[in-house]
């Protein structure tokens, strides 16, 4: 988070985390597609030759003035492939909130669990507490045959209390709900921290 008091700017960093091919980049592509160009930056993507995320994708949203504030939301994805573990840790640095994008296909259940624990470990190594970092679960690819339901994935990850949304990100379904939920979570956390500073 970066605050410029002169400009009344509140800059927030939200990271989309999850296993490989779960739809993290797709979320940002849908946001980029559905938000008016005046309110977003270009989508920056650092990809491999095979069109997979190498370092991160990045998109900034500008909401204009809200109650005297100018919130700017910086969205990042991590590369999901196993070999990029060090990169995921770097991208999580300074995150104000995290969206965990799970793949709802039953065959990917174990990948979701591994990625979840990987995320917890990297949050800790960045001095970010799981208890104080807003996290929203998105269960993507709900159109997959036999897709696991939101409640099943929550149970599997032992996060029954976590706010979550079913999604088919490729169609834009659940993308805005997820984005709104994590943004609200981060704002609430900022307000809470301000109150007790």
């Amino acid at each position, binding site marked *: 988070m*970066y605050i410029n*008091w002169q400009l009344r700017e509140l800059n927030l960093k939200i990271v989309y985390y999850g296993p490989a091919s779960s739809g993290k980049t797709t979320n940002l592509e849908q946001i980029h597609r559905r938000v008016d160009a005046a309110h977003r930056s270009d989508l920056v993507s650092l990809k491999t030759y095979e069109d997979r995320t190498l370092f991160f994708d990045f998109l900034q949203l500008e909401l204009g003035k809200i109650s005297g504030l100018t919130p700017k939301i910086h969205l990042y994805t991590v590369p999901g492939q196993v070999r990029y573990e060090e990169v995921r840790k770097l991208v999580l640095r300074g995150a104000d909130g995290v969206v965990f994008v799970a793949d709802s296909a039953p065959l990917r259940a174990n990948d979701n669990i591994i990625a979840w624990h990987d995320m917890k470990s990297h949050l800790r190594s960045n001095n970010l507490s799981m208890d104080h970092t807003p996290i929203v679960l998105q269960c993507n690819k709900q159109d997959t045959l036999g897709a696991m339901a939101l409640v099943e994935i929550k149970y599997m990850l032992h996060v029954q209390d976590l706010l979550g949304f079913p999604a088919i990100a490729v169609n834009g379904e659940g993308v805005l709900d997820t984005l709104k939920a994590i943004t609200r979570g981060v704002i609430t956390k900022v307000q809470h921290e301000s109150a007790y*500073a």
Partner: protein
Amino acid sequence: MKKSNSMASAEVPSGLSLSPSQDQIINRILRDLLEKCPAQFILLAELSGQIISVQGETGKTDLIGLGALVAGDLAASQEIARLTGQYQHAQLILREGPETASFISEAGDRMVIYMRIHKEVPMGWARLIIQETSRKLAEVTSMPPEEVEKIDLQLSEDKLDTLIGDGLDSIWHE
């Protein structure tokens, strides 16, 4: 939780928070660097890539994207240095091209600075002056942001999260 009106005047504990006076000093330091070096342009960002200040001729450069990439570049280079046992504070990343050269350096533990110069500028001088600037910038952010108390950032707005949610709705096209 009851939120008092005075809470807006409190410093937010995590992240980087710059008061108007700090903002002005930072801009003055960067303008000084731009002139003394001389640099073509300078970008200062928070470590996660959020832009703090830009000075000089930026042309059509996508500054928002550049901020994220500069921060990513620094983070990756620091990690490479750690993995290979070469990490030191205030290391510089230098890229030399045929016409221009660019430096990336951490500025304290919260910011990263990017500076592009023409090849005619002596490298030794540029290296020296960007390191000195980084040190000054780090000092500025370690100062207590005394003027923050005079500003109401309206973080106390009870419905701020709802308003921001509505803001997202308003820019969204199905």
